[in-house]
């Protein structure tokens, strides 16, 4: 009956926290800054800066794509690290964990609810960048039919849908990291420690992904497909990278979900 009660309450709590909104607003500011910078500088830049940047001046819809691209390596993982690292360790740190567990909520259910809320934040974060990008893009630049990477042109509404797809791709990409953060969060009673460790892992995985000597490892890194959403901007859409990414993230969910459960189910709650 009220298993959904806790979930609803946790979701409401997430969006009542100032911290959540501070992070979402900071993310939303990224495409705004990009758009304003491009608008203020004369002429379309060529070949320098993030991919898609040179297309921004031509069509405002590309602000959202550029914004997501810029946020993926650091800003998005940082916010995910804060939310997922806080899940269990934050409750332990404030001492509320002992009251939740004796309320009682079973430990597996608490893990599930906490993961669901953190995953929802990942979706909200990606959506925030996309929406702010679409908004500021429409405000400062011409919008209209969009020429895709494959050369075909689609209508503006169809292009908005593509931006939505890219945001979804980004949100899915972050799920593995979210579960990793949840697992780390069960290891400690110090939320800041869990947040920092999660953020460090996100950066480390990307650095390892840059080293050609470790190319055997690359397919297993949760960051491997983070920037691979270009196929969603072709016509017809090529879903293979989306599928591989989803599979990889799913694998991380299973492995680190099991580890989090194994750790948390038997943990002595002494905080």
């Amino acid at each position, binding site marked *: 009956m009220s298993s959904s009660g806790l979930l609803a309450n946790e979701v409401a709590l997430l969006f009542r926290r100032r911290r959540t909104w501070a992070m979402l607003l900071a993310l939303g500011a990224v495409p705004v800054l990009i758009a304003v910078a491009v608008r203020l500088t004369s002429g379309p830049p060529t070949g320098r800066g993030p991919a898609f940047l040179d297309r921004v001046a031509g069509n405002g819809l590309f602000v959202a794509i550029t914004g997501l691209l810029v946020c993926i390596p650091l800003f998005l993982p940082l916010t995910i690290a804060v939310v997922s690292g806080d899940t269990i360790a934050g409750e332990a740190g*404030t001492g509320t964990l*002992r009251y939740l567990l004796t*309320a009682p909520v079973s430990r597996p259910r608490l893990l599930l609810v906490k993961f669901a809320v953190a995953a929802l934040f990942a979706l909200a974060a990606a959506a925030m960048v996309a929406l702010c990008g679409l908004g500021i893009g429409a405000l400062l630049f011409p919008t209209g039919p969009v020429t895709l990477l494959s050369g075909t042109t689609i209508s503006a509404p169809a292009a908005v849908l593509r931006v939505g797809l890219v945001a979804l791709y980004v949100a899915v990409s972050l799920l593995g990291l979210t579960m990793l953060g949840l697992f780390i969060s069960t290891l400690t009673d110090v939320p800041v420690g869990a947040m920092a460790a999660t953020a460090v892992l996100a950066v480390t995985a990307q650095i390892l992904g840059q080293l050609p000597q470790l190319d055997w490892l690359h397919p297993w890194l949760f960051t491997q497909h983070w920037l691979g959403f270009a196929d969603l901007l072709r016509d017809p859409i090529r879903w293979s990278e989306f599928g591989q990414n989803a599979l990889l993230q799913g694998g991380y969910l299973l492995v680190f979900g099991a580890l989090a459960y194994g750790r948390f189910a038997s943990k002595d709650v002494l905080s």
Partner: protein
Amino acid sequence: MTALPEPGDLAIHTTGLGKSFGKRRAVNDLDLAVPRGSIFGFLGPNGAGKTTTIRMLLGLATPDSGSISLLSEPMPAAASRVLPRVGSLIEGPAFYPFLSGRSNLIRLDSANHESDASTRGRRVDAALDKVGLGKAARLAVHAYSLGMKQRLGIANALVNVRELLVLDEPTNGLDPQGTREVRHLIRVLATEGTTVVVSSHLLSEIEQTCSHVAVMSVGNLVAQGTLEEFRADGRRVVSLRTPDTGVALAVLARLGLEARQDPVPGGQDGVLDAALGPEAPEPERLVEELVAAGVRVRGFTVQAASLEERFVALTGEGFDLVQ
């Protein structure tokens, strides 16, 4: 001390409960028996293992050895069935500081899978009123005083009708009025049939409210039983007021009592104190003998040892924590 009640009549029953943290034995071979309907004082100096025991009772920590029966169900196996019937305050209150007191209680109640969402608001408000927080219900917890947080913690235990309340240091941080209210609340709940376990090191607190007592020391249970049994186990002390102290001392010595003369400032009468051992004659015999010997008995009292004396006798003197 006496034969234990039948297991079915026990709200809490542990056998051979043990828990170690590294090399330190926090709880050792604990056989706790809390009768249903009792107000059970759980005593012990700091670090005696009370809170660790409570954490194991509520399924927060796993025992290394032994078994726990909570409301006749095994713990932690039956936690999801049993815990909705148990309210608790464990090692002080803990809440989200940026939420109001009311929102915090709503949140914890929504975590309880057996609680009814449709009555949630009403139950939370009633619990807040019971502890006198009705007016501060919508204030963020970070604006609460220590005593208000403590009250909120107690309110959380009262949001649902409970068969058992486990309150760890419930009057911690409360002013005298708050302490009295909590004491009153505990008595009322007990008359309604709730079993209340109060862990404390405030002996006067326990002495005034509890029907049963257990004492822990260095992880071990050193005594448990009714409050009367607990007190009766201690030695009684007679106190005699008389001007004829010399004769009285001789008489008491003849009867096998070792009396000690207390200095009385300014008075003409002396006061003699003597402990009554198990073989000592009955107090009325003492008075008879004293009067027969011509001692002018102006005052004669028999007192049970105070809870404090019993406590110190069981758990040791001194300020150092025994580890």
